[in-house]
């Protein structure tokens, strides 16, 4: 195939260069999904709070994040973080903070749709039982909203996993960087890109097939 030789990618090379990147990409995906969902839920609650000041902060934040490319957000945080904190932080830490802040905007829109999908009667019933606002949200609304939105949240997590490759812009060591580094050192960049493509495809395709099965299961329960 055009003189491409994938055979040099031994187990040793993979475990030396690629696994470290894979662990980082997975950690970044899981960490920013959890952080993003928490911050996103807060933003969604702010937006739906009915208080002008709170909801306009959330609207500006969410729309602002959604109107600029992720690469620019990554660059922004990498540039500004040292001035805000006072000392330089690594590309990896910067990536974590960026992804939580960025994905929160997307998760907040999902959670908002989820909260709005809960019928008003549920909230009224919770109020009639004498629950406080925090209790209504924690015990009645959010668990159901979360369950209704689970397939969409998981789909967004797959998108997030794909997005983690963009930390290339600040040189963080992720899965893609692992392949690129190995390709450079052994003088086989094309083979490295090709193998990266296959690995990303296998991971994302299996995850999205799994999400489809979950979706089918959930739609039967309801």
């Amino acid at each position: 195939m055009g003189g491409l030789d994938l055979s040099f990618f031994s187990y040793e090379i993979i475990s030396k260069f690629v696994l470290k990147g894979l662990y980082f990409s997975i950690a970044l995906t899981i960490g920013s999904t959890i952080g993003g969902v928490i911050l996103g839920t807060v933003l969604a609650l702010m937006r739906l709070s009915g208080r002008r000041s709170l909801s306009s902060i959330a609207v500006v934040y969410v729309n602002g994040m959604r109107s600029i490319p992720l690469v620019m957000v990554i660059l922004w945080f990498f540039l500004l973080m040292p001035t805000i904190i006072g000392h330089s932080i690594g590309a990896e830490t910067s990536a974590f903070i960026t992804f939580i802040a960025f994905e929160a905007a997307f998760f907040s829109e999902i959670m908002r749709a989820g909260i709005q999908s809960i019928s008003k009667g549920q909230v009224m019933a919770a109020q009639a039982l004498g629950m406080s606002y925090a209790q209504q949200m924690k015990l009645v609304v959010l668990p159901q909203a979360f369950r209704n939105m689970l397939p969409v949240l998981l789909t967004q997590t797959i998108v997030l996993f794909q997005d983690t490759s963009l930390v290339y812009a600040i040189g963080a060591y992720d899965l893609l960087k692992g392949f690129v580094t190995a390709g450079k050192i052994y003088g086989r960049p094309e083979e490295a890109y090709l193998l990266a493509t296959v690995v990303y495809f296998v991971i994302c395709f299996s995850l999205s097939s799994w999400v489809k099965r979950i979706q089918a299961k959930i739609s039967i329960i309801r």
Partner: protein
Amino acid sequence: MSWEWQVFLNDDGSGRTYLEWIIQAWGWTLSVAACAWVLSVSFGVVIGTLRTVTKYPWVVLAGNIWVEVFRNIPILVQVFLWYFVLPRIFPSMQHWSGFVLVVLALGFFTSSRIAEQVKAGINALPRGQGMAALAMGLTPLQSYRYVILPMALRVILPPLTSESMNLLKNSSVAFAVSIPELTMFAMQAQEETSRGIEIYLAVTLLYAVSAFAVNRLMAALERHLQIPGAGSASGSDKAAVPSISGGH
């Protein structure tokens, strides 16, 4: 900290100011996005339509494979694939410019998402529409051309709008293969001038303005195409199409 906006009037070392450079970069961003948009909409509509032709399972399968392949590989990796790997496998591609390769990468990546929307839009139509068309003696091709697609494409305009804005933002990955677009400008000019905040603010503003312009253009298109009495595309039909398709 003080602003130093006059940095844009400085010479970048090649006889042009940073202001001229950023405007050229903006032009690159818009050209990449516009060309990729045409490609992605053309392929997206054709492939999305083919995926609904259940009479030929292999056509549906081919369409599904297209969508799964281009949707499940990160866009940055696809850009590298087009730029580095494919020219190695097919030597005739070595003469293609980086611009063309990036447009192909972005266009095909986005086409998979548009195909998904087109399929959902067609399936959201009442089945009677297509049957009525066939009953009136239209061939299957005519029923798609004159009945199904005109309706379905109007239905998908709202999700197509957000996908078009995604495409514009995704064009930023072109920096990775040295297309001199806005993100590339941001990285280089930040390094050269060390006035990162002013540079990034200007670039961010241009992205936001462009995304907003895309949004308004698509809204105008939607108004222009609206059929009086047929129900607005952003009305009740919208619920039938998954509007949260992810993206960035």
